[in-house]
């Protein structure tokens, strides 16, 4: 019974996360528009786009793998969300956090690009392998500083549970890992720029180079699924960062605010930067951010 109740609560959590992700996406579009001197779309435009994509009449498919890609990507986002505590200390918000959830979540991180690579390649379009190759290589690059940052935190706390890592920062904002582990936080937040897929690390889906990369052949319902996946992926990643570095959240409102603030970090960077080529972004992530990550690990170990 308790399990069933938890499933119910978590399902509601997923819906809220999707809605919040779409809303945040709309706010981001509005912000970009404002910086560019435009009015911008209404903040609820993300919902309309989602609905419209579901109402596209014919969807062309390229075999079972083609369906699998968006599903895998969405599953990755849902997976991250389900296995980390969104709200610490409140049972419905704890989701399915368990002792080794951090490892599982790191694994789910790969799902986004992997799903696109697998599914898009089934379309047989030459843009897809180029885009997927870019996405995967860029991901391996930004995973390095992020994993180093996580190792530093884990080495210091001695636990692979996000729940424990969050509880370790419970004594007010001075205990946050953002302040107690500044090097780890710096490495992780730089890696987040790459994860979010905003400029300067958005060459994977860049419309005027390889038009939208791996998603070239997707349309209609697939795009809607991908949009849902993207929304929940973004929010789940922000929740992970909130849990790891900003001391988690004890109420829904706090979670909303912290997620939004973390989201804005990558948006603020994205607004005024052009995009790197994929080799340049790899060189970037394996340079200073990786070094900062190594320093963080060394500080945690000694």
């Amino acid at each position, binding site marked *: 019974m308790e399990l069933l109740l938890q499933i119910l609560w978590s399902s509601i959590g997923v819906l809220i996360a999707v809605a919040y992700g779409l809303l945040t996406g709309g706010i981001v579009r509005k912000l970009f528009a404002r910086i560019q001197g435009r009015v911008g779309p209404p903040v609820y435009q993300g919902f309309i786009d989602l609905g419209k994509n579901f109402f596209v009449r014919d969807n062309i498919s390229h075999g079972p793998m083609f369906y699998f890609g968006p599903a895998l990507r969405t599953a990755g986002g849902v997976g991250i969300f389900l296995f980390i505590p969104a709200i610490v200390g409140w049972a419905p918000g704890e989701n399915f956090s368990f002792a080794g959830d951090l490892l599982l979540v790191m694994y789910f991180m790969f799902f986004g690009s992997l799903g696109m690579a697998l599914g898009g390649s089934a379309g047989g379009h030459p843009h897809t392998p180029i885009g997927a190759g870019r996405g995967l290589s860029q991901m391996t690059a930004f995973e390095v500083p992020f994993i180093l940052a996580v190792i530093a935190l884990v080495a210091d706390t001695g636990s692979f549970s996000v729940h424990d890592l969050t509880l370790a920062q419970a004594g007010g904002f001075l205990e946050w890992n953002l302040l107690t582990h500044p090097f780890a936080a710096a490495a992780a937040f730089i890696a987040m720029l790459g994860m979010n897929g905003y400029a*300067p690390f958005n060459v994977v889906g860049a419309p*005027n180079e390889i*038009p939208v990369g791996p998603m070239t052949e997707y349309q209609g319902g697939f795009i809607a699924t991908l949009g849902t996946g993207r929304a929940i992926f973004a929010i789940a990643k922000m929740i992970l960062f909130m849990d790891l570095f900003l001391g988690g959240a004890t109420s829904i409102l706090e979670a909303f605010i912290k997620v939004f603030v973390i989201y804005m970090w990558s948006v603020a960077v994205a607004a005024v930067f*052009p995009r790197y080529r994929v080799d*340049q972004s790899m060189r970037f992530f394996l340079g200073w951010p990786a070094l900062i990550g190594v320093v963080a690990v060394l500080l945690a170990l000694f």
Partner: protein
Amino acid sequence: MTIENPHVEKETQLWVGPQHPGVTGNMAIQVWLTGDTIQRGITHVGYLHRGFEKLMERRKFIQSFPIVCRICVPEPDTNEYLLAASIEELGGITIPEKAVWLRTLVLEMSRLASLVQQIGGGAGATGLGAVPNWTYTLRDYILDSFEELTGGRVYHMYMVYGGVRRDLPVGFAERMEATLRKIEERLPYIDKVTFQSSVWRERTQGVGLTDPAWVKEMGISGPAIRAMGFARDVRRDFPYLAYPELDFSVITSTGGDIYARMEIRRHEVVESIKIIRQVLQKMPKDGPVAAPIPNVFTWRIPTGQTYVRAEASRGEMGYYTVTDGSDKVRRVHVRGASYVHGFAMAERMFEGLNIADLHPTLVSIPTCPPEMER
């Protein structure tokens, strides 16, 4: 017997365009890739072919004006000037002093609008969404001035044989000055996110290189040649209209890469603003704006041929005009700057280029497809 390329099976063929957000207009580039690197590329045009030159052979001299200004859309006035100048030269018409200055003003305004747009395009090509938004608006303010002066927003048809259609409206100079100030105010912001941005510099410096040795082989012109250190500018080398009396400098750079070409444009915007201010200041206050010409319905021009050139924002543009004593031109051939840039030069530049740098390179040259195929 042919020698087989051992790598031929490892190449991916890719069409960039014509339906592609990243090409400069309706053209296509067929590239062969190894990994991310372009081995070779071919420019394909013809998607915008309208047969202008044939249509002009069927129209009387005055009827050609609405046609020629559509040859290059971002900068129509150069085409109008070149047609007017060719026919005036062959028909023996001298334009009054005031018309000379008004034509200079319009040419320079269209150059400015085009340059501003190209800066935005160069930034947008690397994924910087803010700069195109700003520069398109700045261009729109110039188009507003055009609309006030000529009645047309994009296509002006302001010049006629013998001069221009009308004088400046009252208070035009002040409103133009306000527009120029707006552009000047925005330039530091553009500098900050492009020319001073480390990401943008890394993206553009040393990329899309041109070889100075090509200058001896091809008729490269405009920012593309000035980025290689050659101070070649038709306004200076073959002075026309009021340019000899104006004070401006020809900007050069030595990089030969995307950054150098875009930097030249950025400085040329300043020069262009300077020129417009001088023109508005030095322009004679009154006098006729057009010389009388024969009846346009029956005007016949004796046999002759000429080549007139002018500096567009992309480089040297020329009209080869032949008349045969009838009331229509015998032949007009439009030599756009893009013709050399888009085929011979670009196809050499593609070799060894990263596929992600293709679009910034194309924008920086730049190419204007309707000019290549007319």
